C-alpha cells in the first residue's frame, strides 16, 4: 500500500515539475523545477527497487547536470529575456497530443511478458559483477570512459578563449 502512495505522489510531482519546466517564463525557476523532476525520478527508481540507480540519479543529475545548466543560465543572461514559444507552438502541441495518445494506446494494448520472481535485496554488488564480471559489459564501460574523455576535451575546446 505504501508503494502505491509513493508512486502516485512521485508521479504527480514529476509530471507537474516537467510541465513547469516547459511552461514557466522565468528560466531560472524552470531549472529549479527540473531539479524537482530529477529528484522525483530518483524516488521512482527507489519504488522500482533500483537503489544504486537512485543514488546515481541524485549524484549525476541533481548534483552535476543541474549545476551545469544553472551555470549556463548565469553565463548567458537568459533570465532577463525569459522563455517563449516559437511559432510552431500549436502544431507541435497537436502532434505531441497525437503521439501521447498513440503511445498510451500501444502500451495498454500490448500484453507484456511480466514474470514474478523474487527481487534482489541490494543491486550494487549485482550491478558491479554484471558490468565488470566474466561475459559482462567491460567493453561498453571502456567505450563510455572514452566518450566522457571526448566530451570533456570537446567542451574545453569549445569554450576556450582564442
Amino acid at each position, binding site marked *: 500500500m505504501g508503494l*502505491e502512495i509513493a508512486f502516485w505522489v512521485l508521479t504527480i510531482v514529476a509530471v507537474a515539475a516537467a510541465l513547469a519546466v516547459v511552461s514557466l517564463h522565468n*528560466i531560472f525557476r524552470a531549472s529549479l523545477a527540473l531539479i524537482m523532476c530529477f529528484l522525483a525520478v530518483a524516488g521512482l527508481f527507489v519504488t522500482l527497487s533500483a537503489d544504486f540507480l537512485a543514488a546515481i540519479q541524485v549524484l549525476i543529475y541533481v548534483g552535476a547536470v543541474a549545476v551545469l545548466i544553472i551555470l*549556463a543560465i548565469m553565463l548567458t543572461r537568459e533570465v532577463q529575456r525569459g*522563455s517563449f514559444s516559437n511559432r510552431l507552438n500549436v502544431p507541435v502541441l497537436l502532434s505531441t497530443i497525437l503521439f501521447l495518445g498513440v503511445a498510451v494506446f500501444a502500451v495498454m494494448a500490448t500484453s507484456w511478458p511480466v514474470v514474478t520472481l523474487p527481487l534482489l535485496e541490494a543491486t550494487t554488488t549485482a550491478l558491479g559483477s554484471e558490468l565488470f564480471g566474466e561475459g559482462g559489459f567491460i567493453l561498453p564501460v571502456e567505450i563510455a570512459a572514452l566518450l566522457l574523455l571526448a*566530451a570533456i576535451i570537446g*567542451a574545453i575546446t569549445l569554450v576556450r578563449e582564442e
Partner: protein
Amino acid sequence: MTLGLEHYLVLSVVLFSIGFYGALAKRSAVIILMSIEIMLNAANIALVAFSRYVVPGLLTGQVFTIFSIVVGAAEVTVGLAIIIAIYRRRETIDVTKINLMKW
C-alpha cells in the same frame, strides 16, 4: 490496485511527451536542453521498469540505464559548451535567430 508495468510505462510516455513538446516548441536553447534531459529521464524510467518487471534478477535494464546516464552527462556538457560559444559570438541563444546554417 497494485502497481504494474503499465503504470511506469504510461508515466514514462507522459514525461517523454512533455520533453518532446519543450524540445520542439521553445525558443531558448537552454530550455531545449532541459527538455531533452526530461526525455532521457523518461527513457530511463521505462528501462528500469522493464528490468524490474520482465527480467527481475538479471539487471540488464539497469546496466543500460547507467550507460544512458553517461551519454546524457556527455551530451549536456557538450551542448552547454556549444550554447556558451554561440552566446559569445552572437549575444543570443534564441534558436529562431541562429539560422546561419539554414540552407
